[in-house]
């Protein structure tokens, strides 16, 4: 039986979709059987970030409404065959997701995969609460910035109240993933440090993803950053986070991209 993970944040634009794709790809690389599920109905983007936008035939709504069978809607990744995508619908809206239909789809995914990683829409409305509903594990994505941290706190409250686990008196396992972290700015006191954010949110840290040009590059070419440049700082940070998710103990370091003088002068990417 697989684990259901929700990647959530409250605030938009903090890196939920990027992190879903990168962690899914990292776990698949580690030999796990993984599906990434786009819950952002009406504003799907996980397909684009994964580079599978032209292969979408059926979607989550079709499965939930019994229009298509799950295997028809799943898109197998072309780079690694242990990774699949269940895209969201671009035409329907969130009301097309019924609670019963979602429960059935999630149960089937849980049987088929080791990890079911659900990319939550932003906000705290129905789409976000449905995405977290069945979660065993929640990854709260936050930037070291006041509005993101506040919204994360709100989402942590919802995880403790609105999930099936919470209603049964159990706890969703919560992890914090800090993205877009800039060590140099934190050292200068311009940005909250990891310790600051942890002290405020008080949930365990899954990983720190450094601010990096590689993330935009990866989405430009439609590849999880874990695949597009596996030796880059964010790719290594996501790989470490994926290992921790599997229960491995990995020292908490913040990888950095070491650049040579010429790269600095000309702003070139390592090939």
């Amino acid at each position, binding site marked *: 039986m697989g684990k259901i993970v929700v990647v959530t944040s409250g605030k938009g634009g903090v890196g939920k979709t990027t992190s879903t794709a990168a962690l899914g790809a990292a776990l698949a690389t580690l030999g796990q059987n993984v599906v990434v599920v786009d819950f952002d109905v009406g504003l799907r983007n996980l397909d684009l970030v994964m580079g599978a936008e032209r292969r979408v035939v059926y979607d989550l709504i079709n499965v939930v409404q019994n229009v298509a069978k799950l295997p028809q809607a799943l898109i197998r990744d072309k780079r690694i065959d242990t990774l699949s995508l269940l895209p969201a619908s671009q035409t329907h809206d969130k009301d097309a997701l019924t609670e019963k239909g979602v429960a059935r789809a999630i149960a089937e995914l849980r049987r088929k995969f080791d990890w079911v990683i659900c990319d939550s829409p932003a906000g705290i409305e129905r789409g976000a609460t449905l995405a977290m509903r069945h979660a065993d594990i929640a990854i709260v994505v936050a930037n070291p*910035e*006041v509005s993101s*941290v*506040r919204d994360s*706190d*709100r989402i942590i*409250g919802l995880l403790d*109240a609105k999930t099936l686990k919470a209603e049964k008196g159990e706890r969703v396992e919560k992890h914090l993933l800090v993205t877009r972290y800039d060590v140099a700015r*934190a050292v*200068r*006191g*311009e*940005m*909250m*440090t990891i310790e*600051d954010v942890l*002290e*405020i949110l008080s949930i365990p840290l899954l990983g720190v993803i450094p601010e990096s040009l590689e993330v935009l590059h990866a989405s430009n070419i439609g590849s999880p950053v874990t695949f597009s440049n596996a030796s880059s700082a964010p790719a290594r940070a996501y790989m470490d986070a994926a290992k921790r998710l599997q229960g491995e103990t990995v020292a908490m370091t913040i990888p950095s991209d070491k650049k040579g003088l010429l790269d600095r002068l000309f702003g070139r990417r390592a090939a």
Partner: protein
Amino acid sequence: MNFDFLRRSPASVARERLQVLLTHERNFRGRPDLTAVLRDEILAVIAKHVRMEPDGVQVKIDRSDRVTLLQIDVEILTPSSVELVAR
């Protein structure tokens, strides 16, 4: 001259603002909006004795890190409209 503000980094200002705000927000999490509940109940009590407009009670809560100020304004239309409701 006080150069204290120079010593406080923007990051520590951010952390402190969040700590104050979230301490408050967590207290009210999962509860109905306190100002709305107070407004409705105060209105109900006063309306038993004095004729009131439905929006005649304003409730405001101002918070700082040390004290919380609860401000309640009760508006009664004109002095002549104030009559005791017969009980």
